[in-house]
């Protein structure tokens, strides 16, 4: 397996204002490690508002001025940073943003999709492939329906035949069946060698389409494991949080554990999940590295125990 993108110990903080002029650093992503190989879909699953989108924006260098990002990011083995990723963006790495507002309202969609590097032929080919009727390229975004706009975003991402796609909630407002249908193309792309990082809050969607699932909790990835481990039962999972997440699904036990995700700025030390964990002991307080356990990666002091 060829590694495409690797993120190691990513940390994102924003400098914020507390009443008046006191500045403080608010950490929203911490110790986040993740990797995507050629030809696979990795889904980052976490609740809305927990900072998943910030992960994508940090890697792509799209964060606002008051953000600081540290950590190691490599693309095909090359170290990259906020500036050097630019030369890959739009060609090797494509981004499908969450909102269709990212389309330029005063530019014909055909020209937008072609962009700086694309060709007319490729655009026509993609529009045909994505069922965008002839003449769509001459329209402006306000003349396109929501569904069309989303497909336009996808075609513009595919313009440069990217090796890596980062898609942030690409199917908002769709129910599971329609969302899976919409992601069929993603599956096909992955089968042809593209790596896809899919950011979503919908665990059922992730279960339906991903090869590996990264469980996102309070700004970090607690477990990264093959999708088979998540289906049916939680026994194979390595982290207590992933286990309780799967148990809480309505198709499974529907029994929740207590407590809520901690806030950025009010995080426990050591393991982020420890205040809610039934396995908690002294080992959970320290720095817990991401370790390989039974074919998956996990950040838990007790993962190797059982």
């Amino acid at each position, binding site marked *: 397996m060829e590694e495409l993108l690797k993120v190691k110990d990513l940390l994102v903080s924003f400098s914020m204002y507390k009443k008046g002029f006191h500045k403080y650093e608010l950490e929203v992503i911490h110790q986040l490690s993740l990797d995507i190989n050629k030809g696979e879909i990795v889904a980052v699953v976490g609740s809305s508002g927990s900072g998943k989108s910030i992960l994508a924006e940090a890697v792509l260098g799209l964060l606002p001025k008051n953000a600081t990002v540290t950590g190691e990011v490599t693309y095909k083995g090359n170290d990259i940073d906020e500036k050097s990723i630019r030369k890959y963006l739009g060609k090797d790495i494509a981004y499908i943003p969450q909102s269709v507002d990212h389309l330029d309202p005063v530019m014909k969609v055909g020209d937008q999709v072609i962009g700086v590097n694309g060709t007319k032929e490729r655009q026509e080919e993609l529009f045909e492939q994505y069922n965008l009727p002839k003449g769509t390229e001459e329209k402006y975004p306000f003349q396109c329906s929501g569904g069309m706009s989303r497909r336009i975003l996808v075609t513009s991402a595919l313009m440069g035949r990217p090796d890596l796609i980062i898609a942030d909630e690409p199917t908002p407002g769709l*129910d599971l069946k*329609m969302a899976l249908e919409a992601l069929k193309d993603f599956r096909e792309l992955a089968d042809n060698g593209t790596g896809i990082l899919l950011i979503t809050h919908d665990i059922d969607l992730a279960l339906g389409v991903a090869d590996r699932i990264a469980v996102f909790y309070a700004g970090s990835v607690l477990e990264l494991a093959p999708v088979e481990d998540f289906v049916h039962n939680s026994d194979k999972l390595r982290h207590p949080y992933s286990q309780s997440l799967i148990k*809480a699904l309505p198709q499974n036990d529907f029994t929740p554990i207590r407590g*809520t995700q901690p806030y950025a700025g009010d995080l426990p030390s050591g393991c982020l999940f420890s205040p809610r964990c039934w396995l908690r002991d002294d080992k959970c307080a320290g720095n817990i590295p991401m370790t390989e356990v039974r074919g998956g990666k996990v950040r838990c002091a007790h993962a190797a125990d059982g």
Partner: protein
Amino acid sequence: MQLTGENINFKYTKKSPWILKDISITINSGERVGVVGPSGYGKSTLAKILAGYLKPLAGSVSLDGGDLPKKGYSPVQMIYQHPEFSVNPRLKMKDILEEAWVPDDDLLGRMGIEKKWFTRWPSELSGGELQRFCIARVLSPKTKFLICDEITTMLDAITQAQIWNLLLDEAKKRELGMMIITHNKSLAERVCTSIIELPELNHIERADV
């Protein structure tokens, strides 16, 4: 008590296509009717009509045979998908919670609402926490029916299970009638006493959605 919608027809403007056509639905106290179906089939519109937020173009909504009250606290209350939009961002949580009535500590405990959240702004709480406030504020003793429009769609699975377990306990205790709108069939099967597939109920010819 009984909340009924009879032959409800609705479209947003004269020229737009019908969204709901000849829909009849009955909810009795103690019943939890699930309405499932893909997006775009008018689930939310039906919710707003039954809760009295929208008037149907034809057909009627009645409570025990009479009209829904136009003034005062409505016995039919609604909980929305996005709690962050259903609270005023300029008010503190205590003001939001106690807009209509003052829930006692017992109920707050059961809903998992912590008193220390009272002095916070809505933007300082998570979606799950906000949604608990939105539920508690409409659980006045005067509430007889609850319309829940995808109320846990934006939340993670654990919070979803937490909220539904709390809400179901409360609904059973008070014999509330509920209409539960969701696109998640497994969830509907878990929490509802009966399930309606809206596309089957809706008498619309659909060429393309």
